[in-house]
Protein backbone atom coordinates (compact mmCIF):
# COMPACT_ATOMS: atom_id res chain seq x y z
CA UNK A 1 0.00 0.00 0.00
CA UNK A 2 1.49 3.25 -0.99
CA UNK A 3 1.18 6.19 1.25
CA UNK A 4 -0.18 8.94 -0.83
CA UNK A 5 0.42 12.60 -0.51
CA UNK A 6 -2.63 14.54 -1.48
CA UNK A 7 -3.34 18.25 -1.11
CA UNK A 8 -5.43 18.05 2.02
CA UNK A 9 -3.12 15.83 3.90
CA UNK A 10 -3.44 15.69 7.61
CA UNK A 11 -0.83 14.41 9.91
CA UNK A 12 -1.07 10.70 9.67
CA UNK A 13 -1.22 9.20 13.09
CA UNK A 14 -0.86 5.51 13.19
CA UNK A 15 0.27 3.36 16.01
CA UNK A 16 3.56 1.76 15.18
CA UNK A 17 2.10 -1.68 15.57
CA UNK A 18 -0.77 -1.07 13.21
CA UNK A 19 -0.50 -3.06 10.03
CA UNK A 20 -0.10 -1.02 6.86
CA UNK A 21 -3.31 -2.38 5.46
CA UNK A 22 -5.29 0.17 7.39
CA UNK A 23 -5.87 2.70 4.77
CA UNK A 24 -4.35 5.96 5.58
CA UNK A 25 -4.79 7.75 2.35
CA UNK A 26 -4.50 11.45 2.95
CA UNK A 27 -4.52 10.83 6.63
CA UNK A 28 -8.07 9.54 6.63
CA UNK A 29 -8.98 6.63 8.71
CA UNK A 30 -11.38 4.84 6.52
CA UNK A 31 -14.22 5.95 4.28
CA UNK A 32 -16.43 7.17 7.12
CA UNK A 33 -13.69 9.48 8.26
CA UNK A 34 -13.28 10.77 4.73
CA UNK A 35 -17.03 11.25 4.43
CA UNK A 36 -17.08 13.17 7.68
CA UNK A 37 -14.35 15.46 6.46
CA UNK A 38 -16.19 16.05 3.21
CA UNK A 39 -19.40 16.69 5.16
CA UNK A 40 -17.65 19.25 7.33
CA UNK A 41 -16.76 21.10 4.17
CA UNK A 42 -20.44 21.59 3.51
CA UNK A 43 -20.29 23.80 6.57
CA UNK A 44 -23.75 22.93 7.70
CA UNK A 45 -25.07 20.99 10.57
CA UNK A 46 -24.64 17.31 9.95
CA UNK A 47 -28.35 16.86 10.51
CA UNK A 48 -29.10 19.10 7.56
CA UNK A 49 -26.40 17.84 5.32
CA UNK A 50 -27.17 16.81 1.79
CA UNK A 51 -26.33 13.17 1.55
CA UNK A 52 -26.74 13.40 -2.20
CA UNK A 53 -24.12 16.10 -2.45
CA UNK A 54 -21.90 14.23 -0.05
CA UNK A 55 -22.15 11.04 -2.08
CA UNK A 56 -21.24 12.95 -5.21
CA UNK A 57 -18.22 14.52 -3.57
CA UNK A 58 -17.06 11.20 -2.29
CA UNK A 59 -17.40 9.55 -5.64
CA UNK A 60 -15.51 12.36 -7.30
CA UNK A 61 -12.77 12.06 -4.75
CA UNK A 62 -12.42 8.33 -5.27
CA UNK A 63 -12.46 8.72 -9.05
CA UNK A 64 -9.74 11.31 -8.80
CA UNK A 65 -7.68 9.00 -6.66
CA UNK A 66 -8.11 6.19 -9.14
CA UNK A 67 -7.25 8.49 -12.03
CA UNK A 68 -3.99 9.14 -10.22
CA UNK A 69 -3.72 5.38 -10.03
CA UNK A 70 -3.60 5.44 -6.32
CA UNK A 71 -4.30 2.19 -4.68
CA UNK A 72 -7.28 2.45 -2.43
CA UNK A 73 -8.35 0.03 0.22
CA UNK A 74 -11.40 -2.01 -0.61
CA UNK A 75 -13.37 -0.17 2.08
CA UNK A 76 -13.19 3.04 0.12
CA UNK A 77 -14.32 1.38 -3.07
CA UNK A 78 -17.15 -0.42 -1.38
CA UNK A 79 -18.31 2.83 0.12
CA UNK A 80 -18.07 4.51 -3.28
CA UNK A 81 -20.17 1.76 -4.86
CA UNK A 82 -22.71 1.94 -2.08
CA UNK A 83 -22.91 5.73 -2.34
CA UNK A 84 -23.38 5.45 -6.10
CA UNK A 85 -26.26 3.11 -5.45
CA UNK A 86 -27.70 5.43 -2.82
CA UNK A 87 -27.34 8.37 -5.17
CA UNK A 88 -29.29 6.59 -7.89
CA UNK A 89 -31.98 5.63 -5.39
CA UNK A 90 -32.22 9.19 -4.17
CA UNK A 91 -32.46 10.54 -7.71
CA UNK A 92 -34.99 8.04 -8.98
CA UNK A 93 -38.58 8.16 -7.91
CA UNK A 94 -39.14 5.83 -4.99
CA UNK A 95 -40.86 2.56 -5.72
CA UNK A 96 -42.36 0.86 -2.73
CA UNK A 97 -40.56 -2.44 -2.39
CA UNK A 98 -41.65 -4.65 0.46
CA UNK A 99 -39.68 -4.19 3.62
CA UNK A 100 -36.57 -2.83 1.95
CA UNK A 101 -35.60 0.50 3.54
CA UNK A 102 -36.32 3.57 1.55
CA UNK A 103 -33.55 5.70 0.09
CA UNK A 104 -34.22 8.45 2.60
CA UNK A 105 -33.96 5.87 5.40
CA UNK A 106 -30.58 4.85 4.10
CA UNK A 107 -29.52 8.45 3.82
CA UNK A 108 -30.57 9.29 7.36
CA UNK A 109 -28.85 6.15 8.63
CA UNK A 110 -25.65 7.40 7.04
CA UNK A 111 -26.20 10.82 8.56
CA UNK A 112 -26.63 9.18 11.93
CA UNK A 113 -23.42 7.26 11.57
CA UNK A 114 -21.57 10.43 10.70
CA UNK A 115 -23.09 12.15 13.70
CA UNK A 116 -22.00 9.32 15.92
CA UNK A 117 -18.48 9.42 14.64
CA UNK A 118 -18.36 13.14 15.12
CA UNK A 119 -19.80 12.84 18.61
CA UNK A 120 -17.32 10.23 19.70
CA UNK A 121 -14.49 12.27 18.23
CA UNK A 122 -15.63 15.22 20.30
CA UNK A 123 -15.84 12.99 23.34
CA UNK A 124 -12.33 11.66 22.67
CA UNK A 125 -11.05 15.21 22.47
CA UNK A 126 -12.69 16.15 25.73
CA UNK A 127 -11.38 13.04 27.34
CA UNK A 128 -7.94 13.86 26.15
CA UNK A 129 -8.32 17.41 27.44
CA UNK A 130 -8.87 16.16 30.98
CA UNK A 131 -5.96 16.42 33.33
CA UNK A 132 -4.20 13.16 32.85
CA UNK A 133 -2.17 11.49 35.49
CA UNK A 134 1.46 11.47 34.50
CA UNK A 135 0.88 14.14 31.87
CA UNK A 136 -0.77 17.08 33.59
CA UNK A 137 -1.03 16.02 37.18
CA UNK A 138 1.20 13.72 39.10
CA UNK A 139 0.82 11.17 41.82
CA UNK A 140 3.24 10.65 44.64
CA UNK A 141 6.57 10.01 42.98
CA UNK A 142 8.05 7.98 45.77
CA UNK A 143 5.19 6.04 47.25
CA UNK A 144 5.93 4.34 50.51
CA UNK A 145 5.03 0.73 50.07
CA UNK A 146 3.13 -1.29 52.57
CA UNK A 147 5.34 -3.77 54.22
CA UNK A 148 3.80 -7.02 55.17
CA UNK A 149 4.55 -8.10 58.67
CA UNK A 150 3.85 -11.70 59.43
CA UNK A 151 2.22 -11.93 62.82
CA UNK A 152 1.95 -15.47 64.02
CA UNK A 153 -1.40 -16.39 65.39
CA UNK A 154 -1.10 -19.43 67.55
CA UNK A 155 -3.46 -22.18 67.04
CA UNK A 156 -4.26 -24.98 69.44
CA UNK A 157 -7.48 -26.66 70.38
CA UNK A 158 -8.69 -27.65 73.79
CA UNK A 159 -8.39 -31.22 72.61
CA UNK A 160 -4.70 -30.69 71.80
CA UNK A 161 -4.21 -29.20 75.21
CA UNK A 162 -5.92 -31.96 77.15
CA UNK A 163 -4.30 -34.63 75.04
CA UNK A 164 -0.86 -33.16 75.66
CA UNK A 165 -1.52 -32.88 79.37
CA UNK A 166 -2.88 -36.38 79.85
CA UNK A 167 -0.18 -37.91 77.72
CA UNK A 168 2.72 -36.41 79.56
CA UNK A 169 1.22 -36.87 82.99
CA UNK A 170 0.67 -40.50 82.16
CA UNK A 171 4.17 -40.85 80.78
CA UNK A 172 5.68 -39.17 83.81
CA UNK A 173 3.58 -41.24 86.19
CA UNK A 174 4.71 -44.46 84.54
CA UNK A 175 8.30 -43.31 84.47
CA UNK A 176 8.19 -42.61 88.19
CA UNK A 177 6.89 -46.10 88.93
CA UNK A 178 9.74 -47.71 87.10
CA UNK A 179 12.23 -45.46 88.83
CA UNK A 180 11.28 -47.00 92.14
CA UNK A 181 12.61 -50.32 90.90
CA UNK A 182 16.04 -48.93 91.61
CA UNK A 183 18.30 -50.92 89.38
CA UNK A 184 21.40 -49.25 90.69
CA UNK A 185 22.66 -48.75 94.22
CA UNK A 186 24.56 -45.55 94.04
CA UNK A 187 27.85 -44.83 95.78
CA UNK A 188 26.13 -42.27 97.93
CA UNK A 189 23.50 -44.75 99.00
CA UNK A 190 26.20 -47.34 99.67
CA UNK A 191 28.17 -44.98 101.81
CA UNK A 192 25.13 -43.92 103.78
CA UNK A 193 24.31 -47.55 104.40
CA UNK A 194 27.84 -48.37 105.43
CA UNK A 195 27.99 -45.47 107.79
CA UNK A 196 24.86 -46.71 109.44
CA UNK A 197 26.32 -50.18 109.43
CA UNK A 198 29.67 -49.42 111.03
CA UNK A 199 28.05 -47.15 113.48
CA UNK A 200 26.72 -50.20 115.25
CA UNK A 201 29.49 -52.67 114.45
CA UNK A 202 32.38 -52.27 116.81
CA UNK A 203 33.93 -55.58 115.95
CA UNK A 204 34.83 -57.23 112.72
CA UNK A 205 31.76 -57.83 110.67
CA UNK A 206 31.39 -59.69 107.41
CA UNK A 207 30.41 -57.16 104.77
CA UNK A 208 28.68 -59.69 102.60
CA UNK A 209 26.40 -60.87 105.36
CA UNK A 210 25.35 -57.35 106.06
CA UNK A 211 24.78 -56.63 102.46
CA UNK A 212 22.71 -59.69 101.85
CA UNK A 213 20.67 -58.84 104.87
CA UNK A 214 20.35 -55.28 103.68
CA UNK A 215 19.38 -55.84 100.10
CA UNK A 216 16.04 -57.40 99.47
CA UNK A 217 16.10 -57.92 95.74
CA UNK A 218 18.45 -60.65 94.66
CA UNK A 219 18.87 -59.07 91.26
CA UNK A 220 20.65 -56.14 92.83
CA UNK A 221 23.47 -58.00 94.53
CA UNK A 222 26.04 -57.17 91.91
CA UNK A 223 25.47 -53.45 91.98
CA UNK A 224 25.22 -53.44 95.75
CA UNK A 225 28.48 -55.29 96.15
CA UNK A 226 30.33 -53.08 93.70
CA UNK A 227 29.10 -49.86 95.23
CA UNK A 228 29.65 -51.09 98.75
CA UNK A 229 33.24 -52.09 98.03
CA UNK A 230 33.96 -48.72 96.44
CA UNK A 231 32.41 -46.91 99.35
CA UNK A 232 34.33 -49.12 101.80
CA UNK A 233 37.64 -48.41 100.15
CA UNK A 234 36.86 -44.71 100.24
CA UNK A 235 36.05 -44.87 103.96
CA UNK A 236 39.21 -46.86 104.67
CA UNK A 237 41.22 -44.19 102.91
CA UNK A 238 39.52 -41.63 105.12
CA UNK A 239 40.48 -43.71 108.18
CA UNK A 240 36.95 -44.42 109.27
CA UNK A 241 37.08 -48.16 108.66
CA UNK A 242 39.47 -51.08 108.80
CA UNK A 243 39.10 -53.64 106.06
CA UNK A 244 40.33 -57.25 106.13
CA UNK A 245 40.20 -60.17 103.77
CA UNK A 246 41.78 -63.45 104.70
CA UNK A 247 42.23 -64.82 101.18
CA UNK A 248 41.16 -64.45 97.57
CA UNK A 249 37.38 -64.51 97.27
CA UNK A 250 37.19 -64.87 101.03
CA UNK A 251 34.58 -62.80 102.85
CA UNK A 252 35.38 -59.13 103.47
CA UNK A 253 35.49 -58.03 107.10
CA UNK A 254 34.99 -54.46 108.16
CA UNK A 255 35.42 -52.82 111.51
CA UNK A 256 35.00 -49.39 112.81
CA UNK A 257 38.42 -47.97 113.46
CA UNK A 258 39.27 -47.91 117.12
CA UNK A 259 39.03 -44.62 118.96
CA UNK A 260 36.21 -43.20 116.90
CA UNK A 261 33.01 -42.14 118.44
CA UNK A 262 29.74 -43.64 117.52
CA UNK A 263 28.49 -40.49 115.92
CA UNK A 264 29.72 -38.72 112.81
CA UNK A 265 32.64 -37.01 114.52
CA UNK A 266 34.91 -38.98 112.22
CA UNK A 267 37.64 -36.34 112.05
CA UNK A 268 38.33 -36.93 115.73
CA UNK A 269 41.63 -38.68 115.14
CA UNK A 270 43.36 -41.50 113.40
CA UNK A 271 44.69 -44.34 115.54
Amino acid at each position, binding site marked *: *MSVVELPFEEVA*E*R*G*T*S*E*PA*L*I*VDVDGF*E*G*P*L*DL*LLELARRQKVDLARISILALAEQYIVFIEEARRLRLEL*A*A*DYLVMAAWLAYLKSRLLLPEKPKGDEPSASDLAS*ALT*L*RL*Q*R*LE*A*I*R*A*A*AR*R*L*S*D*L*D*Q*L*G*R*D*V*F*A*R*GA*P*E*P*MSVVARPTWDATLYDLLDAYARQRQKAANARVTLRKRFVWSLVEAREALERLVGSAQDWTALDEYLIAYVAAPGMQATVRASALSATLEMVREGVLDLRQDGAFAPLWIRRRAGLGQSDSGEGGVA
Partner: protein
Amino acid sequence: MSANVERFDRHDEAAEAFVQALRIAEALLFASREPVSEAAIAERLPKGAEVAAVLDRLQHLYAGRGVNLRRVAQGWMFRTASDLSYLLARELAEPKKLSRAALETLAIIAYHQPVTRAEIEDIRGVATSRGTLDLLLETGWVRLRGRRRTPGRPVTYGTTPAFLAHFGLEGIDDLPGLDELKGAGFFEGRLPSGFSVPVPSDAPGLRDDEDPLEEDLFFLREPDVDEPLTDSDQ
Protein backbone atom coordinates in the same frame (compact mmCIF):
# COMPACT_ATOMS: atom_id res chain seq x y z
CA MET B 1 -18.19 24.14 87.47
CA SER B 2 -16.54 20.78 87.33
CA ALA B 3 -19.01 19.71 84.71
CA ASN B 4 -17.90 22.58 82.55
CA VAL B 5 -14.29 21.62 82.92
CA GLU B 6 -15.09 18.10 82.04
CA ARG B 7 -16.98 19.07 78.97
CA PHE B 8 -14.14 21.25 77.92
CA ASP B 9 -11.70 18.40 78.39
CA ARG B 10 -13.85 16.09 76.43
CA HIS B 11 -14.08 18.59 73.65
CA ASP B 12 -10.33 18.93 73.67
CA GLU B 13 -9.92 15.22 73.43
CA ALA B 14 -12.32 15.03 70.51
CA ALA B 15 -10.39 17.75 68.71
CA GLU B 16 -7.17 15.90 69.32
CA ALA B 17 -8.64 12.67 68.05
CA PHE B 18 -9.81 14.45 64.92
CA VAL B 19 -6.36 15.86 64.28
CA GLN B 20 -4.91 12.41 64.71
CA ALA B 21 -7.49 11.02 62.28
CA LEU B 22 -6.49 13.73 59.81
CA ARG B 23 -2.84 12.80 60.19
CA ILE B 24 -3.58 9.14 59.65
CA ALA B 25 -5.68 9.71 56.54
CA GLU B 26 -3.06 12.12 55.23
CA ALA B 27 -0.26 9.62 55.77
CA LEU B 28 -2.19 6.80 54.14
CA LEU B 29 -3.10 8.89 51.12
CA PHE B 30 0.38 10.32 50.77
CA ALA B 31 2.00 6.91 50.93
CA SER B 32 0.04 5.49 48.05
CA ARG B 33 0.30 6.32 44.40
CA GLU B 34 -3.04 4.70 43.71
CA PRO B 35 -6.45 5.83 44.92
CA VAL B 36 -7.20 4.62 48.43
CA SER B 37 -10.75 3.56 49.16
CA GLU B 38 -12.71 5.21 51.91
CA ALA B 39 -13.15 1.84 53.54
CA ALA B 40 -9.40 1.29 53.68
CA ILE B 41 -8.94 4.66 55.34
CA ALA B 42 -11.83 4.18 57.74
CA GLU B 43 -10.31 0.90 58.82
CA ARG B 44 -7.20 2.68 60.03
CA LEU B 45 -8.84 5.60 61.74
CA PRO B 46 -9.24 5.73 65.51
CA LYS B 47 -12.57 4.50 66.71
CA GLY B 48 -15.36 7.00 66.38
CA ALA B 49 -13.65 9.05 63.68
CA GLU B 50 -15.90 9.81 60.74
CA VAL B 51 -14.05 9.12 57.57
CA ALA B 52 -16.25 11.39 55.45
CA ALA B 53 -15.64 14.35 57.74
CA VAL B 54 -11.92 13.64 57.84
CA LEU B 55 -11.63 13.44 54.06
CA ASP B 56 -13.76 16.50 53.60
CA ARG B 57 -11.52 18.44 55.91
CA LEU B 58 -8.37 17.18 54.26
CA GLN B 59 -9.71 18.06 50.84
CA HIS B 60 -10.44 21.50 52.13
CA LEU B 61 -7.02 21.88 53.68
CA TYR B 62 -5.30 21.00 50.46
CA ALA B 63 -7.63 22.87 48.14
CA GLY B 64 -5.34 25.76 47.33
CA ARG B 65 -2.11 23.89 47.69
CA GLY B 66 0.44 22.48 45.30
CA VAL B 67 -0.98 19.07 45.99
CA ASN B 68 -4.73 18.46 46.00
CA LEU B 69 -6.85 15.69 47.36
CA ARG B 70 -9.12 14.32 44.67
CA ARG B 71 -11.85 11.79 44.64
CA VAL B 72 -11.21 9.35 41.82
CA ALA B 73 -12.28 5.87 40.86
CA GLN B 74 -14.26 5.34 44.06
CA GLY B 75 -11.27 6.27 46.14
CA TRP B 76 -9.17 9.24 47.08
CA MET B 77 -5.74 10.32 46.02
CA PHE B 78 -3.37 13.20 46.29
CA ARG B 79 -2.16 14.63 43.02
CA THR B 80 -0.37 17.77 42.02
CA ALA B 81 -2.47 20.81 41.27
CA SER B 82 -3.26 20.96 37.59
CA ASP B 83 -2.17 24.57 37.21
CA LEU B 84 1.38 23.48 37.98
CA SER B 85 1.39 21.09 35.06
CA TYR B 86 3.58 23.39 33.02
CA LEU B 87 6.33 23.16 35.61
CA LEU B 88 6.18 19.50 36.40
CA ALA B 89 5.46 18.14 32.95
CA ARG B 90 8.87 19.18 31.75
CA GLU B 91 10.62 16.93 34.17
CA LEU B 92 8.15 14.29 35.14
CA ALA B 93 5.88 13.61 32.20
CA GLU B 94 6.24 10.27 30.53
CA PRO B 95 6.34 10.97 26.83
CA LYS B 96 3.64 8.48 25.98
CA LYS B 97 0.91 9.71 23.73
CA LEU B 98 -1.99 7.76 22.41
CA SER B 99 -2.48 7.78 18.66
CA ARG B 100 -5.70 9.29 17.42
CA ALA B 101 -6.97 5.84 16.56
CA ALA B 102 -6.17 4.59 20.05
CA LEU B 103 -7.76 7.59 21.72
CA GLU B 104 -10.89 7.21 19.63
CA THR B 105 -11.10 3.54 20.38
CA LEU B 106 -10.58 4.25 24.06
CA ALA B 107 -13.34 6.84 23.96
CA ILE B 108 -15.71 4.41 22.28
CA ILE B 109 -14.91 1.77 24.87
CA ALA B 110 -15.38 4.27 27.69
CA TYR B 111 -18.68 5.71 26.45
CA HIS B 112 -20.15 2.55 25.05
CA GLN B 113 -18.94 -0.11 27.41
CA PRO B 114 -19.53 -2.97 27.39
CA VAL B 115 -18.69 -2.88 23.70
CA THR B 116 -17.44 -5.41 21.19
CA ARG B 117 -14.81 -4.92 18.60
CA ALA B 118 -17.39 -5.07 15.83
CA GLU B 119 -19.30 -2.25 17.50
CA ILE B 120 -16.15 -0.17 17.77
CA GLU B 121 -15.49 -0.74 14.10
CA ASP B 122 -19.03 0.12 13.24
CA ILE B 123 -18.72 3.52 14.86
CA ARG B 124 -15.32 4.29 13.43
CA GLY B 125 -16.17 2.81 10.03
CA VAL B 126 -12.80 1.16 9.85
CA ALA B 127 -11.17 -2.05 10.98
CA THR B 128 -9.52 -1.82 14.37
CA SER B 129 -6.01 -3.06 14.28
CA ARG B 130 -5.05 -5.66 16.76
CA GLY B 131 -2.25 -3.37 17.90
CA THR B 132 -4.62 -0.66 19.02
CA LEU B 133 -6.58 -2.91 21.35
CA ASP B 134 -3.41 -4.57 22.58
CA LEU B 135 -1.97 -1.19 23.36
CA LEU B 136 -5.07 -0.17 25.28
CA LEU B 137 -5.10 -3.40 27.24
CA GLU B 138 -1.46 -2.83 28.00
CA THR B 139 -2.10 0.61 29.46
CA GLY B 140 -4.29 -1.08 32.02
CA TRP B 141 -7.15 1.26 31.20
CA VAL B 142 -9.11 -1.29 29.21
CA ARG B 143 -10.05 -4.78 30.17
CA LEU B 144 -11.81 -7.74 28.71
CA ARG B 145 -15.16 -7.99 30.43
CA GLY B 146 -16.87 -11.06 29.06
CA ARG B 147 -18.54 -12.30 25.96
CA ARG B 148 -21.63 -10.83 24.35
CA ARG B 149 -24.43 -13.36 24.21
CA THR B 150 -24.78 -13.10 20.44
CA PRO B 151 -23.67 -15.31 17.58
CA GLY B 152 -19.89 -15.58 17.60
CA ARG B 153 -19.87 -14.65 21.28
CA PRO B 154 -17.58 -11.65 20.75
CA VAL B 155 -15.48 -10.40 23.63
CA THR B 156 -16.77 -7.25 25.32
CA TYR B 157 -14.43 -4.48 26.38
CA GLY B 158 -14.73 -2.02 29.23
CA THR B 159 -12.60 0.37 31.22
CA THR B 160 -10.85 -0.21 34.53
CA PRO B 161 -10.51 1.81 37.75
CA ALA B 162 -7.02 2.70 36.48
CA PHE B 163 -8.73 4.47 33.57
CA LEU B 164 -10.79 6.54 35.97
CA ALA B 165 -7.71 7.33 38.06
CA HIS B 166 -5.72 8.32 35.01
CA PHE B 167 -8.34 10.75 33.80
CA GLY B 168 -9.25 11.91 37.29
CA LEU B 169 -12.82 10.68 37.08
CA GLU B 170 -14.85 9.71 40.10
CA GLY B 171 -16.89 7.24 38.15
CA ILE B 172 -17.87 6.47 34.61
CA ASP B 173 -20.80 8.89 35.00
CA ASP B 174 -18.21 11.64 35.18
CA LEU B 175 -17.15 11.18 31.57
CA PRO B 176 -17.18 14.60 29.96
CA GLY B 177 -20.12 15.36 27.70
CA LEU B 178 -21.97 12.25 28.77
CA ASP B 179 -25.19 14.16 29.31
CA GLU B 180 -24.98 15.84 25.96
CA LEU B 181 -24.41 12.53 24.26
CA LYS B 182 -27.37 11.10 26.09
CA GLY B 183 -29.44 14.10 25.06
CA ALA B 184 -28.41 13.70 21.46
CA GLY B 185 -29.70 10.16 21.51
CA PHE B 186 -26.19 8.85 21.08
CA PHE B 187 -26.88 5.72 23.06
CA GLU B 188 -30.34 4.96 21.76
CA GLY B 189 -29.46 4.68 18.15
CA ARG B 190 -30.34 2.19 15.55
CA LEU B 191 -26.95 0.73 15.13
CA PRO B 192 -27.23 -2.71 13.66
CA SER B 193 -25.28 -4.30 16.47
CA GLY B 194 -27.70 -2.77 18.89
CA PHE B 195 -26.58 -0.53 21.69
CA SER B 196 -29.58 -1.36 23.72
CA VAL B 197 -28.38 0.03 27.01
CA PRO B 198 -28.54 3.79 27.25
CA VAL B 199 -25.54 4.48 29.49
CA PRO B 200 -22.03 3.14 29.76
CA SER B 201 -21.27 0.91 32.68
CA ASP B 202 -17.94 -0.23 34.02
CA ALA B 203 -19.51 -2.15 36.86
CA PRO B 204 -17.49 -5.21 37.72
CA GLY B 205 -20.48 -7.48 37.22
CA LEU B 206 -21.60 -8.60 33.80
CA ARG B 207 -24.67 -7.34 32.04
CA ASP B 208 -27.58 -9.52 31.13
CA ASP B 209 -26.31 -9.95 27.62
CA GLU B 210 -22.79 -10.85 28.72
CA ASP B 211 -21.33 -14.24 29.55
CA PRO B 212 -18.17 -14.65 31.57
CA LEU B 213 -14.93 -15.21 29.73
CA GLU B 214 -13.98 -18.83 29.30
CA GLU B 215 -11.98 -20.65 31.83
CA ASP B 216 -9.25 -21.28 29.27
CA LEU B 217 -7.37 -18.15 30.11
CA PHE B 218 -4.61 -19.08 27.74
CA PHE B 219 -6.50 -16.95 25.28
CA LEU B 220 -6.46 -13.63 26.97
CA ARG B 221 -7.23 -11.99 23.69
CA GLU B 222 -10.05 -12.31 21.27
CA PRO B 223 -9.12 -14.87 18.64
CA ASP B 224 -8.12 -13.48 15.26
CA VAL B 225 -11.35 -14.18 13.47
CA ASP B 226 -11.46 -11.10 11.34
CA GLU B 227 -7.96 -10.82 10.05
CA PRO B 228 -8.65 -11.67 6.39
CA LEU B 229 -8.01 -8.19 4.99
CA THR B 230 -4.30 -8.90 4.60
CA ASP B 231 -3.79 -10.55 1.25
CA SER B 232 -7.03 -9.83 -0.48
CA ASP B 233 -6.44 -6.20 0.19
CA GLN B 234 -3.19 -5.81 -1.65
